[in-house]
């Protein structure tokens, strides 16, 4: 499934929708499926904590190249290094881009506009309907439009990441699925993935998975510590 996606996958969405956890899980699985180079860029210059750049060493061990701030992994500097261009140009890369939240986070992409080829780019929008600004159909569509306007790209798939962190249950996902299906019908954009944290959602069953849209994929927490 991950290899069926376009070579460049840009992960966008609302602040706190779960972009980084999804992007890290995605890239880790992608690594197992291909012999090509696999890179992830941390283009989030909005957030200061819980950034994929903090996982540079962990990813390196897995054979994944993380391109983050050029100065250090904790600096409060909105640094976008030139290396982030390389996987756009070099076709021997499978590329994942972890954007910042909202249209504000998306604007960073403009820096790379001459390298973004829509033919080989997927723009996945991660949605958690328990975030107040993406709580229903009109809000989600508004969010989608503002991201598309800023990026100049069209969202090619939704990711249903509806959750209440450690209080997530199967019904939480089904609730998000219902809302996103309506969004999908109205916008003609498919729900590509539904994601849930395996250790949290204890009541997940094969039957429920069948009711959820797209590929249903279990995640593990990369950013959230055991005590959070």
């Amino acid at each position, binding site marked *: 499934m991950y290899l069926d996606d376009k070579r460049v996958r840009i992960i966008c969405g609302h602040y706190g929708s779960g972009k980084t956890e999804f992007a890290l899980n995605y890239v880790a699985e992608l690594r197992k499926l291909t012999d090509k180079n696999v890179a992830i860029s941390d283009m989030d210059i909005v957030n*200061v*904590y819980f950034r994929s750049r903090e996982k540079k060493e962990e990813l390196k061990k897995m054979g994944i190249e993380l391109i983050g701030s050029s100065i250090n992994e*904790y600096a*409060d500097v909105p640094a976008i290094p030139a290396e982030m261009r390389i996987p756009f140009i070099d076709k021997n890369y499978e590329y994942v881009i972890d954007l910042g939240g909202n249209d504000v986070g998306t604007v960073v992409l403009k820096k790379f506009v001459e390298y973004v080829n829509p033919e080989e780019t997927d723009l996945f929008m991660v949605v958690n309907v*328990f975030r107040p600004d993406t709580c229903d159909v009109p809000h989600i569509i508004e969010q989608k439009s503002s991201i598309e306007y800023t990026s100049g790209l069209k969202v090619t798939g939704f990711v249903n990441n509806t959750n209440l*962190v450690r209080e997530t249950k199967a019904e939480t996902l089904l609730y998000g699925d219902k809302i996103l299906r309506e969004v999908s019908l109205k916008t003609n954009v498919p729900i590509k993935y539904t994601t849930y944290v395996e250790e949290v959602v204890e009541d997940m069953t094969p039957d429920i998975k069948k009711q959820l849209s797209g590929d249903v994929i279990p995640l593990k927490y990369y950013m959230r510590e*055991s005590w959070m």
Partner: protein
Amino acid sequence: MAKVLMKGNEAVGKAAIQAGCKFFAGYPITPQNEVPEYLSRELPLAGGTFIQSESEVAAINMLYGAGGSGARCMTSSSSPGIALKQEGIGYCVFGEIPCVINSVARGGPALGTIQPSQQDYNQATRGGANGDYHIPVLAPASIQEAVNFIKEAFEIADVYRTPVIVLEDGLIGQMMEPVDFDVPVKKREHTPKSEWAMGYGNGNPHLIEGIVMDAPMCEKKNRRFFKEKYEVIEKEEVRYEEYMMDDAEYAFVAYGSSSRICKTAIKTLREKGIKIGLIRPQTLWPFPQVPFQNKNIKLFIDIEMNMGQMVPDVALAVNDKNKVKFFGRCGGMIPSPEEVVEATEKIIGGAK
């Protein structure tokens, strides 16, 4: 489905609006920027005024005016920004201005780092303004508690006509958690603003002042504060949580994020047969005294994200400094539960 998923800083902004905050002034600083960002958008819609002031100093002095005019008001900042506000905080204390100061701590001193820390325990509980004074300090350990404490802070501020600090480490500001905004907070009786605030003229002068013209009057005012405010607050406003303390022989003492790390460490330590619990002060001033009278406890192990700033308070409460040990990280480093377990085993081993 009453819960929503919020980032701590956003939740603080929403809680302030729910509490009836009508005025916010602040200057941006990481890691609390989502507070002003949220309020700049939402507070005007709720009929309030948002000001991005030219400095932290200006912001706290705007609270002197807004609070002195009877508006529920708040400012928010992080460590070096709170340092800048100290003079103004002193004026708010002496002018008896009800106001809420949201303080999201990062690594220090000076500009330090942007990572979470608890290095502002002394800054909050002792303060850097001149004179004799205390300020109630609430220390939430979750987003839900941050929401509840912000609402309570406005009540406490009005009851005692005092600034109230809500002290969070950067993690509480930046973390996402499910939160219920409908948890009720007790509304309290307080002196009507018509009796003291500016702009409520009914013939009697209302004077808000930071100066007293002679020493006997100044002492009298100080003594009134201690008798009418601080003694009552120490009696009425202390809050703490005890976790697995029933059979405990050892106790962690921790607040905010550190207390959560301790709870995870307790699980591991108990599996190893060590009977350990947690005393979690929810108010840092007034500092809880009762839970430290527990005679079954051999050692109180203070865990903080600083170099041991709470230790003197724990030692005073325990009344035996030999029973108080410490482990911490600082500068923006977060101790892992494993580190805490290891440090605890070392401390306890050494005590045998």
